[in-house]
């Protein structure tokens, strides 16, 4: 069984503080949906409203089309995986997994059987008789998932469950989680501040900032066509140049910045282009879109710059440049193809990109560096 989740005009207030402002989201059944945002943006609050630990101040939460108002967390078809997992330390692994069955009055033999099946699913067979503190971080993680699945929820909620794991394990668990989701086929709602997790696992991502949903889209769209300055600056690395729109033609705009004239895509929001001539705008260019301009090949946007320093990152080079009349250091990344960057520190160079790789957006709140 799987169910869709709908948040309709949800506001959540704590005193005068607004943790969620007019949230409208429809999460399809059986999809892997992520809320992505910096800490304190209200994503966990939204999750608690879905799981039933708090009631929205305004608006409705619907699960499988049913209004959840007044229904407690133990009556909702959801299971939550806590940030610290909240496994029961005084119980054995299998007792942890079988807890949802125990409270429903399922007999012991049946519980044990089901726990063993779930241990099989999470690839931890024969570990049921261990105590929880005898497991490693990744194993605990999987036990928490098995325990939640034992409750047979329609919607599984995950509150940054991977944040406590080290990098290698985290990357491994991402694939694992995605595989489990596809195997059981229920709706996963995933909370994270790690964009890598959100982009790799999710069917759809909602980017949140200060209680507001900035954009809901699949990972590609979020990355390539951010709709707000916050999304552009929060997801991935981005260079930005501020200026004034001098011309808006079709889906492209021309922006005059102190560093030079830049052309970029005019991103639509709610079906309408956001920029018109005369507006203040920010042009975002990703480091991997920037190239050194070597004379013969024409680029739409060309900037004059001085190489400040170079960092070798293994699979690519990161070059930091001082661009004329731009207060910030601009970064450019090159795939490491065995050759060097080709420019020494202090060299005068020209960098540029195609207009299709530049994004022009209205001036707005940016993600903290």
């Amino acid at each position: 069984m799987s169910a869709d989740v709908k948040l309709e005009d949800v506001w959540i207030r704590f005193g005068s503080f607004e943790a969620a402002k007019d949230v409208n989201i429809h999460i399809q059944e059986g999809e892997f949906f992520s809320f992505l945002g910096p800490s304190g943006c209200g994503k966990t609050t939204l999750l608690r409203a879905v799981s039933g630990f708090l009631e929205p101040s305004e608006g409705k939460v619907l699960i499988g089309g049913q209004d959840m108002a007044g229904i407690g967390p133990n009556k909702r078809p959801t299971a939550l995986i806590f940030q610290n997992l909240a496994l029961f330390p005084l119980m054995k692994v299998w007792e942890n997994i079988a807890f949802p069955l125990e409270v429903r009055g399922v007999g012991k033999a049946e519980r044990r059987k089901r726990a063993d099946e779930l241990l099989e699913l999470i690839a931890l067979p024969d570990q049921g008789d261990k105590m929880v503190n005898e497991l490693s971080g990744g194993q605990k993680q999987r036990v928490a998932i098995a325990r939640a699945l034992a409750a047979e929820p329609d919607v599984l909620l995950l509150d940054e469950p991977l944040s406590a794991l080290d990098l290698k394990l985290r990357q491994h668990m991402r694939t694992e989680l995605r595989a489990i989701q596809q195997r059981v086929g229920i709706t996963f709602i995933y909370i994270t501040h790690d964009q890598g997790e959100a982009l790799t696992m999710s069917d759809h991502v909602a980017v949140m900032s200060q209680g507001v949903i900035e954009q809901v889209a699949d990972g590609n769209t979020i990355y390539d066509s951010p709709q707000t300055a916050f999304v552009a600056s929060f997801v991935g690395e981005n260079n930005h140049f501020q200026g004034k729109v001098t011309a808006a033609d079709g889906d492209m705009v021309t922006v005059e910045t102190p560093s030079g004239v830049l052309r970029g895509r005019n991103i639509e929001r709610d079906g309408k282009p956001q920029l018109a001539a005369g507006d203040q705008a920010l042009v975002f260019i990703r480091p991997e879109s920037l190239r050194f301009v070597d004379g013969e090949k024409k680029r739409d946007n060309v900037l004059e710059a001085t190489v400040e320093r170079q960092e070798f990152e293994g699979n690519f080079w990161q070059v930091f440049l001082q661009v004329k009349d731009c207060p910030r250091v601009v970064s450019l990344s090159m795939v490491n193809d065995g050759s060097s960057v080709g420019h020494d520190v202090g060299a005068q160079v020209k960098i540029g990109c195609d207009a299709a790789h530049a994004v022009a957006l209205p001036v707005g709140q940016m993600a903290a560096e």
Partner: protein
Amino acid sequence: MTSDRIRKFFVLFFVCGFFLYLFGPLIIMGLTAFNSSAFPRVAPWECFTVEWFDVLSNDTRLLTGLRNSFLIGFGVVLFAVPLGLAGALMLTQVRERVRPWYYTIVISPILVPGVVLGISTLLFWDRIGVMFGASRDSLFYNGFFLTIIGQSTFIAAYTMLVFISRLQRFDSAQEEAALDLGATHVQTFRKILLPFLKPAIASAAVLAFLASFENYNTTVFTAISTSTLTTVLASKVRYGIDPSISALAVSIVVLTVLGAAIHEVFKRREEAEARQAGLVAAGVMERKSTQKQWFLEPALIMILLVFIAGLGTAFFAGTMGVEECKVAVREQKRIETQKRIEELQQRQQAERAAQQAAEEARRVERSQRTGTENFNSIFSSDNLQPQAGDTAPATPQSERAGTENFNSIFDTQNLQQQSGQQEEAPARTGTENFNSIFDTQNLQQQSGQSEGQSGGQSGQ
């Protein structure tokens, strides 16, 4: 180098002094329980004996008090532990702003003197009893009921503190997780919170029991006609004590040490298990599939063996040859007493002779004065004489049963020792306060003989 050594010496001195201060009284008291002397004292050491344990086990008043203390202790545990748990849980539920107020209110019984709690409990339930027109043998006037209620008022606050400190370490996410997984609130409490609080419940119960067991201030008012260990002990101290009280104390100390040692063994076992779990989780070692049974713990067996061996040794040493020793001591005493009495008699005879001469001279003088004759005889040493003389044949009385407690007080030894050998008096400890009351010195002092007394008095 030397300054370092001096510092080390002072640290050692301080540490030794500190432990002496802590355990000195306990050690002295422990020794008195094995001395056959009728008054609890270490010096002079008479005979090693366990007879006071025997006396203790036959003291019905004390044993009844002990039994009542146990009953009340269990009653307090049953009442104060749930009350404290409820108070602590409430603290986690009330709103942030109310919390300091709530805390102050529930903790205040600890700050109220026990005497006040005792009196107010008594008065309160008396009023309620009057209101319901209850008779004098109803619950409202029952010493057990009132003592349990009265002690619980402040002991519940102690247990609450234990629960609060445990609850502070509780991850409330576990409660939420249980709820989220479909458990009801009752199930969450029973299956998640209660198992977590189990160690705190155990320590709160022990704390409540001990606090109840040793309580006097409140109990003395609420117990009414019921006697508890503390009230019996208090009345004993008032009417004269013997070393059976030390024997009781030694028993309690031994049981406490035994309990603490066993607790420590179990704690270490748990810690070792936790360490092993860590290693298993880290993949360093395999999990040991079978665990040792708790009664196979070598440390536990060791402790029990030491306890049994100590008990046996004390029993044999304390019963073998005690009678012979006592007879020898008595004989020794008798001889000494005889000697001292003779000395005293000689001295007093000499004194009397001297005094009579002086008296004769004064009487001649005084006979001219009228009205003072009646008082002369009060301070006369003649009054003393018969007493000192008469007690000599009374020595065998100490063998009479039932009078032992009083022997030491009116013992001729006391009279003898101090009137005859004053240099010995400062050496004795503990009995001085009582000796001085019936001291012949006091009498002698008044009879006008002041030679040699300054030495004896400075010793006191």
